[in-house]
């Protein structure tokens, strides 16, 4: 079975400061990893994904994520947070070669960026 843990329900950060939203995963074999963002009353929007290759993945809106195989983590980062980044962030995982196209999502982390 595959699973995702987002250990923080909420992350608060001041505008202009770097932000990190944590994600760890459990999967048989090598993973595909995704980050999505959800703004209020909206569906999920794709941010970035890790497939293979470079462990640092760059995505939309200045976000990036670092794949760490030894720590089974895929933390989302941004060097300088904006108030408009305030939203709900979901990490998701899928095992390679199995499980069809089923993604398993974490429970989400609410990011609040304050002035």
């Amino acid at each position, binding site marked *: 079975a595959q699973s995702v843990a987002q250990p923080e329900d909420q992350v608060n950060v001041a505008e202009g400061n770097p932000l990190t939203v944590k994600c760890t995963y459990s999967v048989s074999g090598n993973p*595909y990893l995704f980050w999505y963002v959800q703004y209020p009353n909206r569906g*999920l929007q794709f941010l970035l*994904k890790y*497939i293979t290759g470079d462990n640092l993945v760059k995505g939309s809106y200045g976000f990036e994520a670092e794949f760490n195989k030894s720590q089974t983590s895929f933390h989302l980062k941004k060097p300088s947070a904006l108030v408009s980044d305030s939203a709900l962030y979901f990490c998701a995982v899928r095992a*390679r070669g199995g499980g*069809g*196209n*089923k993604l398993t999502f974490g*429970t989400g982390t609410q990011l609040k960026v304050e002035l």
Partner: protein
Amino acid sequence: DVKVTQSSRYLVKRTGEKVFLECVQDMDHENMFWYRQDPGLGLRLIYFSYDVKMKEKGDIPEGYSVSREKKERFSLILESASTNQTSMYLCASSRKQVRGTDTQYFGPGTRLTVL
């Protein structure tokens, strides 16, 4: 741009009613999915479909059924709505799996309340 639309943003139904939630995508995607989103639980997969008339159970299929008669349309059916089915329902679509890298694109969601 991929567009996934859902028939209603908000829906209020009574216990025991039959409820249809409709989802349409305009990108000729083979795969379609239905999730429900609940606070603290993240997104949980109800059903998915790889092709017309094909369906597979997700993690929480009990109390739900689906229909996919046309490639672009995927319907979620609550045969007899219950209060514990009050939730946000999200539809998603993706291309046929190519090395598992396909991204799922989400609709805006339907917030269903069962009284």
